[in-house]
């Protein structure tokens, strides 16, 4: 069964039943929202940007440029934008290193939402092998320095820098959904 480990506001963590995100009929990405029927007037929705990056060195920096632009659009503080960018870098390199994706791509969706547009939500997805999100051992400085186990900090850093994090993983791949409030 797919499982989802998440951290909610105030540091509360939980394991939630998980489902594979709804994909669009083309298989290219998630259906972010249901579109209006053709007879309905088209209205502007909340800002949303989708980006696909190849698994290649420094491509995570391409993604951070988008986070930078949306953070400034939201008038988010520079320090919070930097935290979002660092968390996004970790989510991307986690996918690069561990997903072993068949399409060699990482798919990222940025959404500005929440009350008064105060939330920047970023979804990082890969179609790799997935992993046991709740079985990841938490790193500690003691393990890092005394046992010389220096890697494995990515998810911990993401959870520390973002306000809310949900990690869903299964045979279909991995999705890291993270939110930062300005």
């Amino acid at each position: 069964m797919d499982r989802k480990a998440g951290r909610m506001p105030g540091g509360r963590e939980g394991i939630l039943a998980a489902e594979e995100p709804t994909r669009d009929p083309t298989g290219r990405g998630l259906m972010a929202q249901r579109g209006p029927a053709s007879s309905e007037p088209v209205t502007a929705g909340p800002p949303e940007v989708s980006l696909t990056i190849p698994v290649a060195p420094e491509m995570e920096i391409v993604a951070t440029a988008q986070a930078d632009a949306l953070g400034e659009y939201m008038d988010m503080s520079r320090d919070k934008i930097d935290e979002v960018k660092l968390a996004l870098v970790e989510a991307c390199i986690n996918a690069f290193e561990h997903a072993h994706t068949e399409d060699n791509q990482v798919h990222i969706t940025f959404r500005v939402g929440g009350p008064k547009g105060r939330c920047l939500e970023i979804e990082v997805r890969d179609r790799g092998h997935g992993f046991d999100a709740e079985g990841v051992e938490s790193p500690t400085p003691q393990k890092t320095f005394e046992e010389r186990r220096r890697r494995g900090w990515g998810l911990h850093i993401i959870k520390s820098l973002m306000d809310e994090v949900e990690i869903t993983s299964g045979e279909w791949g991995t999705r890291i959904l993270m939110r930062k409030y300005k």
Partner: protein
Amino acid sequence: MSETCKVSVERRGDVAILWTDGYINNQGGEEIAREAYSELERGARALVMNLEKTRIVNSIGISILIEVLEKVMERKAVLAFCGLTPTIDKTFRIMGLAQYAAIYPTEDEALAAVAATA
């Protein structure tokens, strides 16, 4: 596009100052490590790393900085960081670097502190 970190070094007596400019990932971390090890080989007793021109790091880059710190500690030398953005400062503290290396707001403060201990 290249965000690869550039490292410049200046030696002042027993103290080596390393300035970084750019993204500290695995390549950037290795470049810093190369320069740091070279200065240790040349007898430096203290390293000051000024990161004021680095806006972003990743956990791989920091893990290499931890290796440098371990080498510095083995040689009973001193490592100090300065010029960190609040986010990099926070990440260093999360990963425990701040428990084993000193962090100062400015280069002058870092140099004054290592001069007293090196």
